[in-house]
């Protein structure tokens, strides 16, 4: 729920005749796109619109756009957000999504590139190929199934990481390794 303070200037022949101010409580999740009508009860400053829920007040094509259209008839309307809690929260979620997207891509890139770095420095072995395989499976699962698979993939990643650090990679290399790990790369 958010609160939008509105000012309605009624003009006739270019002169400002009247000005009305009121606050409207809006529910951004509602599909109902509010239009200024008799239900608004906006005659007194501070009067709230009661049940007049508005969909995306601040969005393009939302209520304020309707208000802009009204100005063609000699009226104008200004909206000033006083408190936009859900909007602010929605903004944070979008930002988090963006960060998550970048982090996901970065994580994918880093995992693949750590394998690439091993190839480039001659320190690769069978465990490097296993790392690539695990990365592909994880990325494909998240990509295909979506966020529903994220907890499972994350848990699997942690288990694999711990196993790998606990000597799993060395065990793979010592049993199935294609490179002599005792040799120092050039």
């Amino acid at each position, binding site marked *: 729920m958010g609160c939008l303070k509105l000012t309605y200037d009624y003009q006739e022949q270019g002169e400002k005749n009247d000005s009305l101010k009121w606050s409207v409580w809006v529910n951004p999740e509602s599909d109902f796109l509010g239009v200024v009508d008799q239900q608004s009860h906006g005659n007194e400053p501070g009067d709230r619109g009661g049940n007049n829920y508005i969909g995306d007040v601040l969005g393009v094509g939302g209520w304020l756009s309707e208000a802009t259209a009204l100005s063609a008839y000699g009226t104008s309307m200004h909206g000033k957000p006083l408190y936009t809690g859900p909007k602010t929260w929605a903004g944070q979620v979008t930002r988090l999504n963006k960060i998550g997207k970048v982090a996901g*891509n*970065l994580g994918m890139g880093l995992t693949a*590139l750590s*394998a*690439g770095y091993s*190839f480039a420095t001659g320190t690769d072995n069978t465990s490097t190929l296993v790392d690539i395989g695990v990365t592909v499976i994880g990325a494909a699962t998240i990509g295909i199934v*979506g966020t529903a698979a994220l907890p499972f993939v994350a848990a699997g990643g942690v288990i694999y990481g711990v196993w790998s650090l606990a000597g799993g990679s060395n065990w793979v290399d010592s049993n199935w390794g294609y490179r002599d790990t005792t040799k120092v790369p050039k």
Partner: protein
Amino acid sequence: MKKIFDIFYYYFYCLILKKENEAGEERASFMFSTATSTLVIALYFLLSIVKGENLLNPRVFFFLGVLIYVVNGLLFSRYFVKSGRYQEIIEEYSNKTMGEKRLYAIIALTIFIGSFLLFALAGYNFSRLVFG
């Protein structure tokens, strides 16, 4: 070129599983960008094999690689998702049959796994060639 790019995006779009009221356009973009970034890295290894030497300092390679993954991901997202291009692509191919969509999904999965397979094979061969 643009058309081919769009078709490949649609292949990846067919691959992802969508819940009701879920578009999944971002995931398709993510998978497509990841596959192309991996292919670029694989191509670097292939080029290094042809030249028979390490073309870049490993640290520079690592830094550039990270940059490729991140920038590519953001550019794909901007081109397909943010611009709304994905909607045009989906509408354009909306008349495809279920069988065709399944085939596209298989092609996309092959590209995705194939890019990593090529990356691993090229990297392995490069490493064997340069370091023995």
